[in-house]
Structures are given as C-alpha cells and as structure tokens.
C-alpha cells in the first residue's frame, strides 16, 4: 500500500497528496464524496511550502532571540477551517474532517 493510501485510511480523510519542494502537486488521492480538486490540492501544497518557510524563519529568530529552543526546524504546518483541516509535513499532506480529526495521528502518519 502506498503512503498516500495509508494517509487516506486516517479517519475523516478527504484527500492525500504529495508535492515537490516548490509546491507543485506530484501525486494525489481524493475520496469519492469530496469536492476537492487537483487544482485545489496544488494550491494547498503551495500554502504548506510558503508557510513552513516563513515559520522556519520565525522559529530560527525566536530561538536566537529568546534562547527558547524546540521550535526549529519546523516540521509541519496545518491550516484549520471551520469544518476541515489540512495537515502538511515535508512533501505530503492530508485533508481531514474536523469532527473526526486526530492531528497527532495525522502527523505520525505523515512522519512514517
């Protein structure tokens, strides 16, 4: 079973996808009952890449300024909507329904 199929097995998963280090969509799965499209996942991948880059800069600066380590390097970014969330880590992401969302399981699956 591929890594994307494993992500689709997460409870409430609507889509799972892979992307390049610049955010272009390279592979994806979308559940039959989802309105998501490959174009939307491509933009989501760009959102992940952009926000992880910014957060990494902020974490670097925070640690140097405050001496409080543990945020750098940033390993994942999650966008939370009212009903759905998108969890991204490295070059993969998964879209999950909030009422069933296990963020820790999602990060663990993305790490594996």
């Amino acid at each position, binding site marked *: 079973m591929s890594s994307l199929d494993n992500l689709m097995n997460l409870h409430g998963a*609507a889509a799972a996808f892979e992307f390049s280090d610049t955010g272009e969509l390279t592979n994806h799965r979308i559940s039959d009952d989802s309105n998501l499209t490959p174009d939307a996942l491509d933009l989501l991948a760009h*959102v992940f890449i952009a*926000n992880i880059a910014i*957060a990494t800069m902020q*974490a670097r600066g925070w640690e140097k300024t405050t001496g409080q380590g543990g945020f750098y390097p940033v390993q994942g*970014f999650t966008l939370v909507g009212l009903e759905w969330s998108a969890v991204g880590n490295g070059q993969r992401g998964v879209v999950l329904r*909030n009422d069933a969302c*296990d963020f820790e399981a999602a990060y663990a699956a993305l790490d594996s």
Partner: protein
Amino acid sequence: MSVYAELADIPGVIAAGEYAYRGDRYNYKGQLNDEMARMASIMCRATTMGTHMQTEILCANSENCPFDPAHGWMVRGPRFSVCVVANVFCFLQNEAGLLNRVMKKMQDKLADVEKMI
C-alpha cells in the same frame, strides 16, 4: 476565565495568549515575558492574516471550498507546537494526547469567531 487562561493551565502548555487583530494589544499567561508575548502576538497575527489571504485565493475559483473561512493554523517543531484559533495562541510541548486536547478545546471554545473580534 478567558480561553487563553484555561489553556495555560493545562499541563504541558508552555503559554497561551490572545491578541488584537488590529494593533499590538495582547494578554498572556505562562512561561513568556512581556517582550516574548509581544513578539508571539505579532507573529501569530501576521500568520493569521496570511492564512486568511491564502484561503481566499484558494477558494476563489472553487465552489464549496472546505477551508473558507480560515479558522486557525498550527506549526509543529521537534519539541514544541504553536496552535492558533481565531485570535488565541497556545505554545505547547509535543506530548502524547496534548495537541488533540488543546485543539479540541480551542475549536469548541472559539467556534463562534464573530464574538471574538
């Protein structure tokens, strides 16, 4: 008790706070000093504004976009995570069960964003 104060009392939470969407006003509780809380508030507010802009672009050309409106975001580091829902932020340790507990509380307590602004 405010939401951020409730979050700060959860074991494993480093600090929590709330910030104004406009201006530099903020409140916080936990293991931060005033300058750290000010920096955290500015960074969280800027990222929140960014995610709102990105979500509008993401949803501009699709019907029933599942992320509109953006309600929050989180970043995860090797030992700590930052969670933001509406105008409340929470810094927490990466302990088993804590991230889900904090996010459940934030999403439940801050579901009605209009009341928070």
